[in-house]
């Protein structure tokens, strides 16, 4: 249960360089939050994947990055939002080996494994929202 959120920053994703901007913002905020270098990179990679999905499948959307707190811990929350076509089969999209781009590596299942919390909603014709949180240990 998140009790507070702060430092929210929203990056519009419209072109490929916006992906880089979102990564940069995420990396900076995660460094400020005290995440180690590996985790900073994993967070940047996750943002990258979420932003690329927006860029490739929805065209445009936003990445919002913010600091969140629950009773015990502080974490970084990333929200990817788009009004694209939506994902027909969400379970498939979270299966390994299922990527339209055919790329190995991260993709959504990879993001899910690198982060702590993972939530996804999608409505066909309306868009998709993915929310992930990485808690600081």
């Amino acid at each position, binding site marked *: 249960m998140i009790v507070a959120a702060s430092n929210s920053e929203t990056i519009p994703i419209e072109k490929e360089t916006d992906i880089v901007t979102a*990564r940069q913002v995420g*990396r900076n905020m995660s460094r400020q939050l005290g995440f180690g270098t590996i985790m900073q*990179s994993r967070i*940047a990679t996750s943002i990258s994947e979420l932003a690329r999905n927006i860029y490739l499948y929805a065209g445009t959307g936003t990445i919002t990055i913010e600091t969140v707190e629950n009773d015990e811990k502080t974490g970084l929350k990333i929200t990817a939002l788009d009004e694209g076509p939506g994902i027909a089969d*969400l*379970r498939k999209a*979270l299966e390994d080996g299922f990527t339209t781009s055919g790329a190995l*590596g991260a993709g959504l299942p990879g993001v899910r494994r690198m982060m702590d919390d993972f939530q996804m909603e999608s409505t066909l014709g309306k868009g998709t929202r993915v929310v992930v949180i990485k808690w600081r240990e």
Partner: protein
Amino acid sequence: MTRGLEAEYVQILRDYLDSQEEDELYGAQKLGKFLLRRDISPEEMVDLHGRALEKLGDVPEFVRASFRILTEVMIEYGNAQRSLNSWRSKHAQLQSEVAVASAMQQALLPQNMPTYPSVEIGAISIAAHEISGDYYDFMYVDEHQFSLTIGDITGKGIPAAMCMSMLKYAVDSLGEIRLGPDQMLRHLNRVVERNIDASMFVTMLFGCYDTQSHVFRYAVAGHEPGFLYRAQEGRFYDLAGSGVALGIDGNSQYKEQEVHLQIGDLLILLTDGVTECKLGRSYMTREELISNLQHEVHLPSQNMVDQIYRRLLMLTQFEQRDDYTMIVLKRI
């Protein structure tokens, strides 16, 4: 590994050293994807890195030597990665069998809903893992009546699917004899008891709907209770009925139940995959389920079952733990 790749990597490194910007880190991530797709092992990647350093400046001898140790460690990582391919292909073989079995199962499910002017039927059945141990069927009885079966074989996956296909044939052949719901379950119980492993059993509801009198006569064998929705009151009631699951005791007896539907009333039949949705750490209560049903109760039956599945799947964050089946029958 090609020269071109090495040159590209040196360039990424050089650009990063010049600017230390996120651009190059993004480039590095994309390169990682590319290398993986090209089946470049992690030890080759580390070796590539060591060679690239030589192009960028004076590498101290201890750094150079350290790469020989890192390569050695990485060979084990490479072996793990090479085994991924073999796991993947072994799994692919089994999965293609499962896909064929799944298609076979789909063919066993009713291809068309019964069509009577005064009832509207919707049904959905989704396996937790491709092949299902849930089962439902409709059978034509006469121009005013049809019967329906909904069942759940203990467990999931391949063994449950094998039982399911046996059950399909059992219901099919017994169906020709036109038994009452209680008799039907009594006979099926014997078949299941005789032919299925002692550790397995089947829960089932079998019923017969009369589209003139709108009376639904049914019997239950250990199956998750369905709901009756009374449109006038806007309330949900549990469908009465109990009875031992099939395959436990060859002598089990079953009791016929009866409900009468008014215009707008719904019968909602389901398997426990619907009610055993896990929300975070606790299971959904029947009250929570009802409030979800309530939201979609105005929709046409097929839309209603589709919409509820989507809603519940979202609530459970796409972790479907059991086979899921729901039938909605609306008197219109």
